[in-house]
């Protein structure tokens, strides 16, 4: 195990309003969580509205190694998974809407059940 030093590295997250998402802001050195809290507040958040703060010891962050970063590659062949692959639907929909809905058409929607 690595030698424990007096100062540890903390990652600081905060949000501006109760309903906004937490954002990573910065990191700082502190001997423990409580000290990290007050340091974060005093040093970096004096001039900005803050609704909440999270402190995470950096050693508790599971990071990716170089090999793991290889798993992030993706192919650009996924139009069918996003709505942009279905851009033509709007036009098709409009066409059907313009067709007259007669009784025969509506009754045919029930179909025959096996």
């Amino acid at each position, binding site marked *: 195990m690595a030698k424990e030093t007096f100062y540890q590295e903390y990652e600081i997250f905060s949000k501006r309003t109760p309903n906004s998402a937490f954002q990573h802001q910065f990191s700082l050195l502190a001997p423990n969580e409580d000290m990290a809290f007050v340091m974060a507040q005093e040093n970096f958040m004096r001039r900005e509205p803050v609704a909440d703060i999270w402190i995470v010891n950096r050693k508790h962050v599971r990071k990716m190694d170089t090999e*793991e970063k*290889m*798993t*992030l*590659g*993706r*192919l650009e*062949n*996924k139009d069918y*998974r996003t709505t942009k692959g279905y851009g033509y639907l709007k036009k098709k929909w409009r066409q059907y809407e313009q067709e007259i809905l007669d009784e025969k058409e509506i009754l045919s929607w029930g179909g025959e059940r096996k």
Partner: protein
Amino acid sequence: MSEIEKDLPMENKEALTSLLFQLADDDFMYAYRGSEWLGLAPHIEADIASSSISQDSMGHAAMFYSLLEDLGAGNADNLAHMRIASERKNSILTERVNGEGYYMEVPHYDWAYAVVRSYFYTQAKKIKIDSLCGSSYKPLAEIAVKVKMELYYHRLHWETWFKQLMGSTDVAKQKMNKAVELVMADFGDVFSYGNQKLEIEVSRLIESEEDLKAKWHESIKPVFLALQMEAPTIPDLPSKNGRNGEHTKDLDDALLTLSEVSKLDPVAIW
């Protein structure tokens, strides 16, 4: 059509077409079986992650079918949906059902089987894709480089599941070991090129069956070693060879389901 494609000698083209069908049909059936898990995987994140992998794999199948389309084998969608079982070249492993029951009724699928099949299959696919990156057929080598990009994640995903369940409770281990037996019983044709073996290997489209089998075995060894288990061996002779169009009833049933919609209206524009 590029110069390379036009210049292919006749025997070479037959070997190439056969290999492309093997790759395309494998991913197509693997993705189809994976898609049957939608909504049924052990928890919601596993459901989404595995479905996403199935969709990626379907994307890979589409790329291989499009290479066949370029060679004049027919329309890619039709190649995927309309061919009968005896024309298909997927391995038996990829066509096997996920377990008892049917997903539209009462599925009793086996997650251990899904994990082992997916892990062993993806590991085998990685070995093949690595080899295909140096294929003598350039368009295939180019596709392999692309497919490889997404295999890092697929492989890591299934290897993680495999290690976690194998290192879990006695019940989990028991189910996993049973799944390993089932999967290995069907592994005989995974690295087979069927009756095109000689032509495929001589044309240097991909390395030999034997080389790839050895590489697969080497690649899973460390995982089994860490679990203090012996890595399984690939059966020498498959009971049925999917590469030669020999298949089980599972494939017939799957084809009926997966082609149902496209056969309703073959001229529909999607």
